């Protein structure tokens, strides 16, 4: 399956973020498989990677096809499930939402099936903000930096909580700081994540104002950049002083994490960041969910796939998710879907009439882009359990039941070269989240979980420490509400509410509330806008009410 171009990687690697940390699988013992860092020479393994071993053989794994009958799940055979899916679809078109974090070979194979089937459309699902960010960095022409490259840089601009998105990238920053204590570490993160605590200069920008902050910073650093009117609440002076601190850099690293629900200017942010890094001799490091987001974006023009915005607009079509938890990721509620191919229960499998077992990304192996632009071919960590289909085969089995005899022609992955993307238009102004009386909800990435938690939330350590979830509050907001550290609160907007334990965060500005990005209920609280014309899917910060919930029932829940 693997072309000659990518280098074969002999070691097992985690593919839940671009760091691609080495891991080894132990067991199976009494507690099943487990992953752990290598004995010698490893560069760390965060809780996401440590969860992989357990998930390969977890008790909650979906191993059989099921259909919903009178509200209960009934096991059926795979072939029967595929036939029943076709029968239930009737004369509707089918849209297959496949997880963009899968190896390239899986995406190409899925595309081949959909090309041969006129009523089927393929949609490669990536985190919307991350896709936009990568399109921007591709258009900027900036080099991509690996974690190892960071130690050789002489200035850092961090956008979002990059240290939570990929804890391994912090090592290079700290190594550089150990060699040069005066190195500038500039952080733009309205969510006040873990990276903000290590900033030499923190740019005070309200949610949604990251683009204006980067533009102001770039101009102060002497880089040609169109002016963007800053929104109310942005501290322009801190952006300018940060720009001056970076002006003398010979190799600037910009580390980007595009968290969900932070607004819609990520393509422009990626573009401006890439231009700024390029002008100062450096590059960008995009810390995405899943190792293969950049590969999926680069593969895009070779696939006959429709955009996520286009796919979501096809309300009359029958939706089939494969690998991705579409409904959980976008916080969509009340939408029935026809079928879901998944390894674990998720919002999508709950809403699906049919569920088919699908292998995990690390069980199929294939071509990835890891650590900057290093194209590698990874072996499967372990083969999938017996009877569990590879993701592309889930689509293939349904296509065969629909009368497709064979997939269309498939091509080798080849070299995944930079996308010829057009430069995005830069707006004249930047609309930040309104400073209302209600706190503004943002979602923050956590090192414990990947994506919307459809995978890692099933691991035992994540289950233990993630329940109840934590909500980060500024000290002033906590005083106003009348709660203290570890108290329970209810975060509410409209009909939606989340009970969470308070963590007072001194790095957070008053008026901001941060819930974990891996919490589907929290994602549903961020207003989602879909625009097929611009292919934009934008989740914005929402406003919420917070009430103390220190009653006996909530403490014992």
């Amino acid at each position, binding site marked *: 399956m693997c072309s000659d171009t990518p280098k074969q990687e002999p070691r097992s690697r985690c593919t839940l973020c671009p*760091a691609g*940390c080495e891991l080894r699988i132990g067991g199976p013992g*009494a*507690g099943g498989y*487990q*992953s*752990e*860092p*290598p*004995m*010698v020479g*490893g*560069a*760390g*393994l*965060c*809780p996401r990677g*440590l*969860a992989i*071993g*357990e998930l390969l053989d977890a008790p909650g794994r979906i191993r059989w096809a099921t259909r919903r009958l009178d509200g209960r799940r009934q096991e059926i055979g795979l072939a029967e499930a595929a036939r029943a899916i076709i029968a239930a679809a009737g004369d509707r078109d089918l849209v297959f939402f496949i997880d963009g974090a899968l190896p390239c070979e899986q995406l190409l194979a899925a595309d081949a099936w959909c090309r041969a089937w006129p009523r089927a459309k393929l949609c490669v699902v990536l985190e919307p903000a991350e896709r936009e960010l990568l399109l921007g960095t591709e258009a900027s022409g900036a080099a991509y930096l690996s974690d190892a490259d960071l130690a050789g840089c002489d200035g850092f601009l961090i956008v979002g909580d990059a*240290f*939570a998105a*990929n*804890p*391994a990238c*912090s*090592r290079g920053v*700290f*190594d550089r*700081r*150990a060699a040069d*204590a005066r190195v500038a570490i500039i952080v733009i993160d309205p969510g006040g994540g*873990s*990276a903000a*605590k*290590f900033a*030499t200069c923190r740019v005070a920008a309200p949610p949604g104002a990251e683009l204006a902050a980067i533009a102001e910073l770039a101009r102060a650093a002497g880089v040609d950049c169109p002016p963007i009117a800053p929104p109310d609440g942005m501290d322009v002076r801190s952006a300018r002083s940060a720009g001056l601190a970076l002006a003398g850099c010979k190799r600037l690293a910009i580390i980007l994490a595009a968290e969900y629900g932070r607004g819609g200017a990520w393509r422009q942010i990626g573009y401006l960041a890439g231009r700024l890094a390029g002008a100062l001799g450096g590059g960008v490091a995009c810390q995405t969910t899943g190792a293969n987001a950049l590969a999926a974006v680069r593969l895009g023009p070779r696939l006959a796939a429709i955009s996520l915005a286009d796919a979501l607009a096809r309300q009359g079509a029958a939706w089939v998710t494969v690998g991705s938890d579409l409904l959980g990721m976008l916080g969509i509620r009340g939408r029935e879907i026809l079928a879901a191919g998944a390894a674990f229960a998720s919002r999508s499998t709950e809403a699906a009439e049919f569920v088919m077992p699908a292998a995990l990304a690390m069980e199929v192996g294939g071509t990835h882009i890891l650590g900057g632009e290093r194209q590698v071919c990874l072996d499967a960590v372990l083969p999938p359990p017996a009877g569990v289909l590879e993701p592309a085969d889930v689509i293939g089995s349904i296509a065969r039941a629909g009368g497709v005899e064979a997939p269309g022609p498939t091509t080798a992955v080849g070299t995944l070269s930079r996308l010829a993307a057009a430069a995005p238009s830069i707006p004249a102004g930047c609309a930040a989240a309104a400073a209302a009386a209600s706190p503004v909800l943002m979602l923050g990435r956590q*090192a*414990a979980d990947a994506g919307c938690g459809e995978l890692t939330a099933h691991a*035992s*350590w994540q289950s*233990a*420490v993630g329940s109840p979830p934590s909500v980060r509050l500024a000290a002033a907001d906590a005083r106003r509400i009348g709660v203290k*550290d570890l108290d329970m609160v209810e975060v509410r907007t409209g009909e939606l509410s989340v009970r969470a334990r308070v963590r007072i965060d*001194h*790095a957070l500005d008053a008026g901001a509330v941060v819930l974990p990005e891996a919490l589907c209920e929290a994602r549903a609280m961020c207003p989602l806008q879909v625009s097929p014309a611009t292919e934009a899917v934008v989740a914005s910060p929402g406003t919420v009410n917070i009430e103390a919930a220190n009653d006996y029932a909530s403490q014992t829940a």
Partner: protein
Amino acid sequence: MITQARQPEIDKRVVIDVDRCVECQSCAAACFAGHARMPAVSFARAGWALLPLICRQCKAPACVDTCPAEAMVRDEAGIVRRRLFRCVGCGSCAQACPFGVISDSLAGTPGTIKSPGELSGHQISKCDLCADRLAADARAVPRCVAACPSGALRFVDEHQAEADGLLIIGGRSAADHLYKRR
């Protein structure tokens, strides 16, 4: 063989560089996975920081002296550890530890640790420096250190630390950049 006689203590320590910890909790997750879901790493909040608490391997361990079941011992490798089938889960060691690194509620995971019907429900977990890894490979380091992505946790010889440019503070904290920017 393990005896209650005074053994020489191990020279190596797990130390934390407080200016590198990004609070990812990889150390706790690695300990949890590697020790049958009985993690010996807990956390304490200190101002802005959430720092892992890991056994200091004391020269005169109070946990060994106080254990009524002789479950806590210093083994032949010099590691202070708990003997699995002697521990009765009384919590004396947790009470005696002057540094609070032996916890009877264990890092906010009491539901897992105290699950009824499991042996682990009656035991206290204690860091053994991942003796299985150290025995398997002389170059190996404990799981928490190997899992630390930022390089905050290090497994250092206390006699060599200064030569390596590390400042050891209070026996368990190290810094190559101590609070310069805070």
